[in-house]
């Protein structure tokens, strides 16, 4: 069993959880993911590694409450145990040789972009961090990003915090202002990664995106996570989860990610009802 060591809400729907999983922590690295089941009858869901502590034997995950499992997870407390926690899966982020990078995070994806920014910053690279959120209440990890970047831009769609606008606007401004990036790393909602990739393609800057499609096993067995990358079918779990943003067919990925949307909403509602019942 995998004990929850620490749990905190980063915003009303985003939770950070540190989980005891010594075997996973041993080899975990930025860019990789784990598969968990919250309870014995639960579904398997993939979540990207947000942090790890090899000495303590813990792995940190950050998730947004979207479906039944994340709703159940949100109600689990420190000291509770997750039924299953397997990994690390997928390939790690390639940061070697990068000297100047823009790390772009969107919403809960910022949580995944953060360890990448941190790793690059620690290696001595110049890091522009650009993180975008819908509104002020949803802003997460601002202090962490500030400490892990050379320059930080916090954006909100509605202008209630930081700069008003989209991450692509500020990224384009920086490029036009003469910033030279070896690479742009974009992690966030599919539409955000799509538009960052379209922008950087225009300026011919290599761009890496982190895909988080629907999957079951995470080891190449189900094929549910398949994507079209450069005209070829790839499995995000074993070939990724990071891919060249200029080659990913985002429209297909967006469509495939919505396959069980009705079910997810329903499952979350059911989980909510369950918890309401228990509280009464």
């Amino acid at each position, binding site marked *: 069993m995998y004990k929850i060591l620490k749990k905190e809400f980063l915003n009303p729907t985003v939770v950070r959880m540190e989980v005891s999983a010594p075997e996973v922590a041993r080899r975990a690295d930025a860019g990789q993911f784990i598969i968990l089941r919250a309870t014995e*009858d639960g579904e398997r869901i993939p979540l990207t590694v947000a942090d790890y502590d090899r000495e303590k034997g813990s792995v940190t995950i950050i998730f947004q409450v979207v479906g039944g499992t994340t709703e159940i997870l949100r109600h689990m407390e420190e000291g509770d145990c997750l039924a299953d926690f*397997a990994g690390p899966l997928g390939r790690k982020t390639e940061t070697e040789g990068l000297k100047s990078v823009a790390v772009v995070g969107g919403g809960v994806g910022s949580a995944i972009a953060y360890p990448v920014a941190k790793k690059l910053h620690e290696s001595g690279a110049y890091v522009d961090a650009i993180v975008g959120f819908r509104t002020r209440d949803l802003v997460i990890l601002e202090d962490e990003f500030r400490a892990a970047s050379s320059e930080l831009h916090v954006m909100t769609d509605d202008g209630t915090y930081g700069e008003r606008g989209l991450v692509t606007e500020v990224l384009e401004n920086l490029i036009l202002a003469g910033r030279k990036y070896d690479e742009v790393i974009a992690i966030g909602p599919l539409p955000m990664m799509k538009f960052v990739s379209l922008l950087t393609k225009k300026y011919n800057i290599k761009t890496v995106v982190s895909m988080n499609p629907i999957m079951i096993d995470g080891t190449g067995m189900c094929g*549910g996570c398949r994507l079209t990358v450069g005209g070829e079918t790839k499995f995000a779990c074993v070939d990724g989860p990071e891919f060249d943003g200029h080659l990913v067919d985002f429209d297909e990925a967006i469509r495939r990610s919505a396959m069980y949307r009705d079910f997810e909403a329903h499952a979350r509602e059911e989980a909510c009802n369950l918890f309401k019942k228990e509280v009464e």
Partner: protein
Amino acid sequence: MANMSPKKNEMPQQDPHIRCKNFDEVALGYSAEQAIDEAKRCLNCKTRPCVAGCPVAVKIPEFIACVAEGDFEGAYKIITDTNSLPAVCGRVCPQESQCESKCVRGIKGEPVGIGRLERFVADYHMKNKTEHTARPESNGHKVAIVGAGPSGLSCAGFLAAKGYDVTVFEALHVAGGVLSYGIPEFRLPGEVVKSEIDELRALGVEIRTNIIIGKTIMIDELFEEGYEAVFIGSGAGLPKFMKIPGENLNNVYSANEFLTRINLMGAYRDDSKTPIFHAKHAVVVGGGNVAMDAARSARRTGAEVTLVYRRTENELPARKEEVEHAMEEGVKFEFLTSPIEIHGDGKVEYITCDRMRLSDPDESGRRRPVVIENSEFDIACDCVIMAIGTSPNPLIASATDGLDTQSWGGIVADDVGKTSRDMVWAGGDAVTGAATVILAMGAGKTAAEEIDRAIMGKNQ
């Protein structure tokens, strides 16, 4: 007195019209009376041709003689002497092409129902056992096994029986491999698999789930941890696709994904937390046992099902029994049919196929399917399940220095499972590509004998 009936005792079964709406087991199993009656059909031949037909050499006439006398526990002991998973084998082995194909009674009539008797004995033991088999005394040697599927479990069972401390590392959250994620409940109930695995645990086999060898722990680290030998039975889990347009539309599944959702995650149950698309009309592509499993599972989730196969009924690689069951349950077959494109606006709406004909036999005697020009036709459907085969997962080989693989991904191993790495054996689908449960079990057993010999040889 021998029972000279030319026919097997019939297997009691659920009615097709009822069973196509549930996931309960199709075959219900013999009663004790039926088992004894069937056992009496065995002539107890001195030449024992049936044993030669069994990849794990079960002492068939001996166990059947026990059944005939009503000594079912005695029969169980004889079977488990060479077979670690009898309730599984009794259900899913292709007996018609193995033990039963060699049975003398099959010359004039039907062979003895060896598989049905094996299943009866294993089920009897499960229901009536009072205690687990005792754990043998440890010999102090540690062996690691990668993958808790048929080959790994078989290898583990034999080594544990010899006193080895065996640890099986499994990537998924439950043991069983294809027995748990692939073969459906109505053919092999999860409880049966679990019970057989519990027997192995009682023998001392430790199973560690959620460990992906090659990711969580490396093969080399296993040796550092004191394991003296490693057996890789990681199976052939990578699904193949046809590489035709439209394959990434929503509601196109690999059979692996479809069956994993249904079997491993229980998505057919209303209370399951794992979703599955409930199709109105599913098209299954392929003609093997997995295609039959997918078709029959889709049928049970409420779909009309059409199975398309590019050759004719005679070439279907699936077991005859599975094909018959699928037909009885209302699965429609389109033979000499090969898909060329899946169409739909975001999700599957119809599939376009070519009609095929079989060529004249080539030098190898094989008749290849050839496209008939301008024969395209459409099948309206809202789900497509690709069951055209799987290949070995490259994960372990790519993470292990010096472990040679074939160009198609199979791990290179000799007849007894020895790989290019010292003290590393491999067997089952990881070596051969997708085959049967019993062949994988045979490979696991053979490797276990070799591992025993190698470790004992080193320690003399």
